[in-house]
Structure formats: structure tokens, C-alpha cells
């Protein structure tokens, strides 16, 4: 009898297959790398006057139908904070969709400056691994909705291990445990990049993403491996993630966002057209 009850309950409260055909759209997020206030990596939109101008590029993506943008700052100079704030302000003045800033955020003061400059969310990675309390402090100060935890993960000897510095530095943390801990500390969203899939253009790591997605109750952004439109369909259908992020396939025009959204819609995935 108890078993029947349990089955009924599980069925009754089982999440919808796609993770949310309830009016909330799945998000498509282009990611831009920024150095010294300029976007790096080749971008070949034909009608861009200045492909290195993050503001113009951001506006272009917004117009194409991107739901959100992520800027990853890789500036290494001591001027970084100042140039970053200036860039964030310029973007916020022009952009009518939300955007996240990541890279080099190590303390509350960094986050506050970015919030005041118009950033909707900040993404933290290494600083949170070194000092997990940062997640808690940021969530308490600015609200969980402001705090995205970025995790770079690699498959090693049957385990998923958190890596830092773009995959170059291994940690002792297991990805699943780290993400669970971050959720408890107050992370509002997870940006999970599979280093095994990143750059391969062979598709997202649906198995891992699905596993993590079932484990947590905050939104998750899939990253690493996007090569064609079908990969996006697959990651939403198989892993049930809330958003998918990609860089080069968008920058090089290999996938156009309007086409991608039409294709997702045809496959029954709720998107904003």
C-alpha cells in the first residue's frame, strides 16, 4: 500500500519532461569574452562596424533574439576593475535584456560596483572555490538572484572533478557535491561547463547536466560542446536544463539565433520568439 502511495506521489509531482512547459521559456545565451574592455575571439557578423565593441555586439545579439548575455572578463591588468565597470555601464545603457558579468570577482565590493553599473547578475568561479562563504555573503547582500556560480568540470577516473583557470587547475572537489553545497550557500543559478565537451562542437554533456539538473532546485545553464542546432534541442529535451550557452557558434554565425529558436519551437521547446 505504501509503495502504491509512493508511486502515486512520485508520478503526481514528477517534473514535466522538458522541465517547465508552464509559461517559462528556455533561454539562449551567447557568451562574450572581454579583454581590456574589448571583445576577443573572432566575430564575423557582416553588418558590425566594430566587432570588438561589446556594446555593439550585445545590441546585435539582443536584436537577434538572445534572451540574455554573459560577459567573461579575462583582463589581467590592474586597471581591470575600472575598464570593466565602464564597459558594464555602456552595455547597460544600450541593452534591453539582462546580462551577467563574470571574471575576477573576489569580494563584495567588486559585486556592488558591478550591480551599481547595471549588471543583472555576477558569475563567480575560482573565488568561490577558495572561499565558499563568498557565495553566502553575496546572496545575503544582494539576493540569490544576483549570484551565478560557474563550474568548470572534467571527467576523471569515473568522477566529475571541479577545475579552475579554464580547466588548467584541478581541485579536490567533486562537481556534484560542490554544486549542492553552493545551492545551500545561496547560489541562485549554476553555469556548468563541461571541459571534456568544450570546443569539441560534438554536443553538450547531457548525462552530467541531467544528473545535476535533477539534483538541484535552482536554474542551470548548460555550457560546452554546442556545434549545431540539434545539440540545443537535445540538451533541453534530454537534460531539461533551463538555458544553454555558447560562444563561437554564435560569433562565427554558424548558428543564427532566430533559426535556432524556430527549430526549438518546432520541437516543442518553449522559447521566446
Amino acid at each position: 500500500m505504501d509503495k502504491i502511495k509512493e508511486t502515486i506521489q512520485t508520478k503526481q509531482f514528477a517534473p514535466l519532461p522538458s522541465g517547465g512547459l508552464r509559461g517559462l521559456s528556455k533561454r539562449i545565451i551567447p557568451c562574450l569574452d572581454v579583454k581590456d574592455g574589448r571583445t576577443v575571439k573572432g566575430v564575423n557578423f557582416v553588418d558590425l562596424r566594430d566587432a570588438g565593441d561589446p556594446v555593439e555586439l550585445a545590441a546585435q545579439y539582443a536584436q537577434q533574439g538572445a534572451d540574455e548575455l554573459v560577459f567573461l572578463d579575462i583582463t589581467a591588468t590592474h586597471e581591470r576593475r575600472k575598464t570593466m565597470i565602464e564597459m558594464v555601464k555602456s552595455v547597460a545603457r544600450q541593452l534591453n535584456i539582462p546580462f551577467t558579468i563574470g571574471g575576477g570577482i573576489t569580494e563584495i565590493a567588486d559585486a556592488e560596483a558591478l550591480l551599481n553599473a547595471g549588471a543583472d547578475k555576477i558569475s563567480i568561479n575560482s573565488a568561490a572555490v577558495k572561499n565558499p562563504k563568498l557565495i553566502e555573503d553575496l546572496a545575503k547582500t544582494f539576493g540569490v538572484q544576483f549570484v551565478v556560480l560557474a563550474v568548470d568540470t572534467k571527467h576523471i577516473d569515473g568522477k566529475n572533478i571541479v577545475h579552475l583557470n579554464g580547466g588548467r587547475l584541478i581541485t579536490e572537489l567533486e562537481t556534484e557535491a560542490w554544486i549542492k553545497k553552493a545551492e545551500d550557500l545561496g547560489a541562485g543559478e549554476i553555469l556548468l561547463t563541461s571541459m571534456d565537451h568544450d570546443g569539441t562542437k560534438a554536443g553538450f554533456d547531457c548525462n552530467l547536466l541531467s544528473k545535476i539538473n535533477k539534483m538541484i532546485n535552482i536554474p542551470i545553464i548548460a555550457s560546452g560542446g554546442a556545434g549545431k542546432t540539434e545539440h540545443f534541442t537535445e540538451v533541453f529535451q534530454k537534460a531539461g536544463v533551463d538555458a544553454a550557452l555558447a560562444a563561437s557558434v554564435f560569433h562565427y554565425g554558424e548558428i543564427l539565433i532566430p533559426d535556432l529558436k524556430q527549430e526549438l519551437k518546432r520541437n516543442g521547446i518553449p522559447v521566446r520568439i
Partner: protein
Amino acid sequence: MILDTKYLILIMIGIVNYGAGNIFSLTAALERQNITYGMVNTETDLDKYSHIIIPGVGHAGAAMKKLEQTGLVGAIKALKKPVLGICVGMQLITEHSEEGDAELLGIVPVKTKKFEKTLQIKIPHMGWNDVEHKNNSLFEGVEDNAQFYFVHSYFIEYNPTFDIASANYGLKFSAAVQKDNFYGVQFHPEKSGKAGEHILKNFSNLS
């Protein structure tokens, strides 16, 4: 000749400056729409503007405390000009929030509730959600089922009397409410693309 200045008030939005969250994106969105604005810090500031916006992100209970510290609560409740609460600013015009068990302005007799985990939804509700609006002037020119950008963990209960737009996320809730000259939107019009720009423009055209 003495001009009667009451007919010369230009459209200008006053943003209640009570320290609850960043307003850079809001002012940027108003600038893009060529809507002039200024900050409201004191009661006399409220008279300077034709329209008032109450912004807000973060914790509703904490935001209410900050608003009380400005000493503007009584004057805001007595306003007869159009007022728009955005996100937590919208929640503030309701009676009560489960966030911090806080008594709020009580202008619109509805309650702000928590999305429960039993709804089997991700919390916060983050992203673009369909909105079904009821042809209120605030939504003029907005397509049926247009999408708006939401970021929140608490929602305003659906009440057909005050609801002017609803959304579904685990349950049906109010995406926008109205009572007399008081309006509230749960989503962020300043981050909601063209649809959001319509809302800001329409609000500035309300009289």
C-alpha cells in the same frame, strides 16, 4: 497674465530613491525612451513629478524597512498621480509579504506569497515568461502572450479584481496589478526588450 501652472506640468517620472537595489538599468531604459526622470528623496520631491516609480530588488521586508526610513510612506499612500511599482516595488504596494512576514503599504488588498518547493519548480523564477494581459492601458500595443523578464522567489496572489496581467509558473499569479492610480509589475520592464519598453512608455502616458 498669471499662468495656472497646474496645466503646465510636463511628463517627468520621479523614482523613489530608498536604497533598495540598483536603478541604473531603469534610468537607462527611460533615457532610451526619451522619458525624463529625477529622484524622489523627500516629500516635496513627490510634487515635482507627474508620475512616480517605486523600484526594488531583494528582500521585501528589508525594502519596506528602508522605505519607512525615508518617511515617505504616508505621502506615497496619498498620491493621486500614476504610481508604478516594479518587482519588489510592486510587492510593496500589497498588504503583506511572506518574505520576512512583513506588513507592507497595503494599497492593493492582495498578498505576496512564497513559491513553495512542492510546486516542483525552480526557484527563483528566472527568465522570460508568457504574460496574459487584459488590455489595460498599461499594456497598450503589447502583443497577446508577449513575454517579459522575471526574477523573483515571491509572487503576488492572483485576484481577478486587481489583476491586469497574469502569468503561470507552477501556479497562476499576478504579473501586473492595478488599483486606481497605483500599478505594479512583477517583471522587469527595463529588461524585457520591446515589450518592456511599451510598458514604460504607456506608464508615462497615463494621466
